């Protein structure tokens, strides 16, 4: 074990777990991307909006109303017996942003999946990760029939910092998605090194 946290448990391998977020507008292919590399069919977890710390006047007078849930799809890649990477698709709607805070905590980095026909759909995600200093890259999902724009145009349209990578990808293709993920981790590494320097000096 890398953490050397063997405590009481003996035989079961206790893997180090990491997560990468997949953000982007509705219908841009987040779950497709997760499914392309996940070893399990993307699973769905739900969280109730009446979560702790969220005082809600739930039932009075609205007995017929269902509790609203936020669904998140996630996938898993076991890289090694003791190293597991999870991919979480973020809930698309902005009103679920409180879930983003929880998801992004401890995240290695993020993919912002973009569709060039609706680039504005990912403004919010770019903004979110920029503000929280979470390393992210833009993966442009090349839908069939959508015009391909040079990377520079995408960068300009999203007003990205120079160090944010922009990658063209096909969210259905395992290899392509794998390259996107490698890109995220690589970027996180560079980013971390940079940050460590500024902190220590």
């Amino acid at each position, binding site marked *: 074990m890398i953490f050397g946290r063997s405590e009481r448990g003996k035989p079961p391998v206790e893997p180090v777990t990491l997560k990468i977020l997949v953000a982007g507008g509705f219908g841009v292919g987040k779950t497709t991307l997760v499914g392309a590399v996940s070893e399990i069919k993307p699973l769905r977890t739900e969280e*109730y909006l009446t979560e702790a710390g969220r005082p809600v006047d739930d039932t009075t007078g609205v007995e017929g109303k269902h509790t609203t849930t936020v669904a998140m799809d996630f996938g898993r890649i076991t890289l090694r017996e003791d190293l597991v990477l*999870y991919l979480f698709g973020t809930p698309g709607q902005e009103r679920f942003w409180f879930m983003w805070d929880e998801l992004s905590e401890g995240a290695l980095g993020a993919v912002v999946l973009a569709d060039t026909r609706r680039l504005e759909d990912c403004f919010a995600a770019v903004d979110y990760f920029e503000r929280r200093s979470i390393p992210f890259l833009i993966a442009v999902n090349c839908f069939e029939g959508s015009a391909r724009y040079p990377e520079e145009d995408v960068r300009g349209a999203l007003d990205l910092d120079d160090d944010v990578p922009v990658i063209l990808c096909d969210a259905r293709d395992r290899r392509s998605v*794998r390259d996107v993920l490698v890109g995220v981790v690589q970027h996180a590494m560079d980013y971390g090194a940079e940050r460590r320097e500024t902190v220590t000096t």
Partner: protein
Amino acid sequence: MSTDGQGSSHWFDDEAGPVVRPYAMTRGRTTSAGQHRLDLIAVVVAEPHADDAEEDPSLSPEHVDIAVLCRDAPQSVAELAAELNLPIGVVRVLVGDLVDAQFVHVNRPVPPAELPDESILRDVINGLRAL
């Protein structure tokens, strides 16, 4: 998950979701005492005597389900929630109970605000490339 006495002629349909409010399983608790919020990718690992959970009268069937799943292999909180079809908040409370009863322990992921070690990141890249 439960079928909660769903007979035939009810006023509700499937759209209504589970009839028992999910937090009934946690006896109304939305957090567990003295526990940090468990991350979605925190790994729940069974202790050697996790089998005893089945005989523990203070535990609910959902507690036992969690203990059994974790005994097979360590599980992340997110996987438990998906597998048992329970909201994450409920799973957190139930796992907290099992930790208190020492049937499981939890391995937390890399603490937030601390980036994982560079060597781990390198391992991740190598692992991805080998896919």
